[in-house]
């Protein structure tokens, strides 16, 4: 019997459960999903002594307001997030990258992400969630994953199956670096664009549009001129691919993207910059910088080493 649970007082804007995501399903039309900002997801789990592939609560812009009932449990928030903890009617401001212990009746109120998009709330234990294809990541478009594939809602109760016996409190100093230059490799339809179009892509500034979500990031700015065809025969896509539809505004494929698409691909974002890309809020300025495959591979290796190094400090 479970007697440890969370009640959702306010769900936040786009609050879902996410883990490492699911693979080997592109061919039937199901994308990776999983936590958008992988580094912050891993750190959140490590701070509460979870397995690194455990499910966490992911929120965008505004997070949930939660009331906890049950035995003592640790939690941590990562990202650039403003939140408070309410204990016996005393409210304190919380710090990201630090775990706290809460007990019966305490509340966590995640007010907002600061000039960023995604934040993570990890609880030191195992949430009682349904798995589909080895993942409880919620894909709201296909209604796949835990919570019937739907965002969290007011009044919901989330049971906690098991609380970690290791309740050591952890802390790490970490600052999310912001970047304006997103490194990209040439796409497979790079030559569909005019010389001027290519120049526009690499030299001009684009603005992240409000029409961005877990599926894709739409950009606004100078139009990228296509001189061959604004459609191609539908073919596979991957995370980070940049398509340019007929209107000339680029769209970057993100973790819940449609698995095939019929717009020319001008580029693909280097994996090293993905975590930081997804954190760029609407209105942010973005510039693309070309790198080659070898450099992209090396940079990712370094980024991954840095992530592992951070995790080993916790």
């Amino acid at each position, binding site marked *: 019997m479970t007697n440890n649970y969370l009640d959702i007082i306010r769900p936040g804007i786009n609050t879902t459960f996410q883990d490492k995501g699911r693979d080997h399903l592109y061919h039937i039309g199901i994308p990776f999903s999983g936590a958008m900002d992988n580094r912050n997801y891993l750190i959140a789990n490590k701070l509460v002594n979870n397995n690194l592939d455990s499910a966490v609560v992911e929120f965008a812009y505004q997070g949930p307001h939660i009331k906890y009932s049950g035995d003592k449990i640790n939690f941590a928030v990562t990202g650039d997030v403003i939140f408070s903890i309410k204990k016996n009617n005393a409210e304190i401001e919380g710090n990201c990258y630090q775990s706290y212990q809460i007990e019966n009746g305490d509340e966590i109120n995640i007010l907002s992400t600061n000039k960023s998009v995604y934040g993570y709330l990890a609880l030191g234990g195992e949430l009682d969630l349904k798995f589909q294809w080895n993942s409880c990541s919620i894909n709201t478009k296909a*209604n796949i994953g835990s919570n019937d594939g739907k965002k969290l809602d007011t009044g919901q109760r989330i049971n906690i199956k098991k609380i970690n016996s290791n309740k050591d409190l952890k802390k790490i100093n970490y600052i999310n670096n912001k970047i304006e230059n997103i490194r990209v490799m040439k796409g497979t339809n790079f030559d569909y664009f005019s010389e001027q179009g290519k120049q526009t892509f690499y030299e001009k500034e684009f603005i992240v549009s409000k029409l961005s979500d877990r599926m894709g990031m739409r950009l606004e700015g100078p139009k990228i001129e296509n001189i061959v065809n604004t459609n191609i025969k539908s073919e596979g896509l991957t995370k980070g691919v940049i398509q340019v539809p007929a209107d000339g505004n680029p769209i970057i494929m993100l973790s819940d993207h449609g698995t095939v698409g019929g717009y020319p691909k001008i580029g693909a974002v280097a994996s090293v910059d993905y975590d930081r890309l997804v954190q760029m809020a609407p209105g942010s300025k973005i510039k693309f910088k070309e790198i080659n495959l070898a450099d992209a591979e090396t940079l990712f290796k370094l980024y991954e080493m840095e992530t592992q190094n951070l995790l080993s400090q916790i």
Partner: protein
Amino acid sequence: MIKNISNLGDAALYCDFGNEVNKSINSQVIKYFKTIKEKKFEGINNLTPSYNKLIISYDLKKTTFKEVKKFIEKINIEDSKKTNSKTLEIPVCCHENFSMDIKRLEEILKLSREKILENFLNKEYFCYMTGFIAGMPFLGDLDENMRAQRLETPRVKVPKGSVGLTEQFANIYTFESPGGWNILGNTPLDVFDSSKEDKPNLINPGDTVIFKEITLDQYKNFND
């Protein structure tokens, strides 16, 4: 055969089988897809076959472009490889409640409703790929006189089960989704079922599909 392999970003291989769209090229793509899937190469985490391309995604923490490319270049594709394809009959109701774009099709194709349905129904279509949204089949080929472009402005919501046409292809919306295909009818069948984890898709690449017309009453009683 694969004409060219390039990188799509730093975590995927782009295998190009040419620009033509036909059954024989697509069957090659599907054979590669099935063979690679069986080999379970360490690090490959997704395969996306389409009309004439195969995209192989991999985990950059486990492997690299060079390693995967080498593996693909050496792979032996058996021509006789069984594809386990099947033929399926899909009931479709073309009542005016569902055929939202019939007037548009009549105008573009300069054919009557009766003629359009006669051309579309009771014919064999080949499933080239599934995707965009989970389980959506891309079926072909429509006759030359049945080919229409996408809607200029896509619909924000296309109802679940809608059967649509664009260029030489037909598809089925497996759940409500935005979309720009010309909608001709609707099937009461569940073409995608996420509760069946090992077989969520009713129609798979390589399968043959035949659309059979049903009446509105048959449609309404279908799931009883």
